[in-house]
């Protein structure tokens, strides 16, 4: 049986979701997307610059048949703002997925838990496929699942920080909490391939990242590194790692030594 990622009614082969911000060059970005083999790409919804409407736009040069779009509600600070953005995104006719993001603090960009839960409830009722960005709080994750979220997306560390998994212990609680119900997608703060592999080894179903690739010295090579880290971490998780021991445990026989 294929090891696929299921989110609501969607099914994906890739477990790497890629954000599309902060790339300095659209050609490099396309190459990075290709190298990542990501099938889900995130976007933000913003006002069009009506004085300069022909600014290059990454979405409009994508082969939209190849990708599932995951617009986010970035910029929303209340549930109502998030719902408004989600409705606009859906009205494009391009997608019914939404990444709920209700920010509670502009310095840390940590999510507002109350607004996040409320927006999730509202958007689930409206029929969206809802993926919710949340803090590393297992109890909130439980409430999000009860509210009908189709995926829970705990941050590893602050958005764009590259600090990696600050609280793998609580992330593993969230993974346990959601097991058999909805996928857990580690979202935000991932800085390196090692972070990605660590997240997947913990049992996360997928990772969403952006800055770690867009900001790398070689974004295309880093996109490939992230893809490989996803595969390595996933297989390592499925294979089941050994228990850690305090002292050595020889792997060569200790008997029949020459004297």
């Amino acid at each position, binding site marked *: 049986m294929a090891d696929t990622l299921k989110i609501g009614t969607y099914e994906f082969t890739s477990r790497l979701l890629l954000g*599309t*911000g902060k790339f300095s060059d659209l050609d490099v970005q396309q190459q990075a997307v290709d190298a990542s083999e990501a099938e889900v790409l995130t*976007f*933000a919804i*913003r006002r*069009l610059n009506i004085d300069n*409407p022909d600014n290059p736009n990454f979405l409009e040069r994508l082969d939209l048949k190849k990708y599932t779009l995951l617009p986010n509600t970035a910029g929303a600070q209340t549930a109502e703002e998030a719902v408004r953005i989600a409705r606009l995104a859906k009205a*494009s006719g391009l997608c019914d997925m939404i990444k709920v993001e209700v920010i509670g603090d502009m310095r840390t960009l940590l999510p507002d838990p109350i607004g996040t839960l409320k927006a999730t409830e509202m958007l689930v009722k409206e029929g969206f496929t809802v993926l919710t960005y949340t803090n590393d709080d297992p109890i909130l994750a439980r409430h999000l699942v009860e509210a009908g979220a189709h995926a829970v997306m705990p941050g590893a560390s602050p958005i764009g920080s590259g600090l990696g998994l600050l609280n793998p212990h609580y992330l593993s609680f969230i993974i346990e909490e959601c097991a058999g119900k909805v996928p857990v997608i580690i979202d935000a703060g991932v800085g390196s391939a090692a972070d990605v592999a660590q997240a997947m080894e913990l049992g996360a179903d997928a990772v969403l990242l952006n*800055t770690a690739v867009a900001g790398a010295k070689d974004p295309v090579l880093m996109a490939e590194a992230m893809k490989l880290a996803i595969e390595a971490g996933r297989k390592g998780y499925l294979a089941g790692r050994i228990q850690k021991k305090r002292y050595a445990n020889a792997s060569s026989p200790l008997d029949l030594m020459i004297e």
Partner: protein
Amino acid sequence: MKLIINGQERDVAAKTLADVVQSFGLNERIIVIEHNLNIVPRDLYATTDVTEGDKIEIVHFVGGGR
């Protein structure tokens, strides 16, 4: 006629939303329009009248993520 488009007051010769889209050269673009806080499907642009002072948001998908 004065319309508030993306928060800016603009003088636009337009009777309908389709005229607004045309006047900014957006016919071929992937956009979504909110007219006085109501989302208008693309096939209704031509039959949605605009009047002085209407608030129009024209949005699109931009790079964003993490």
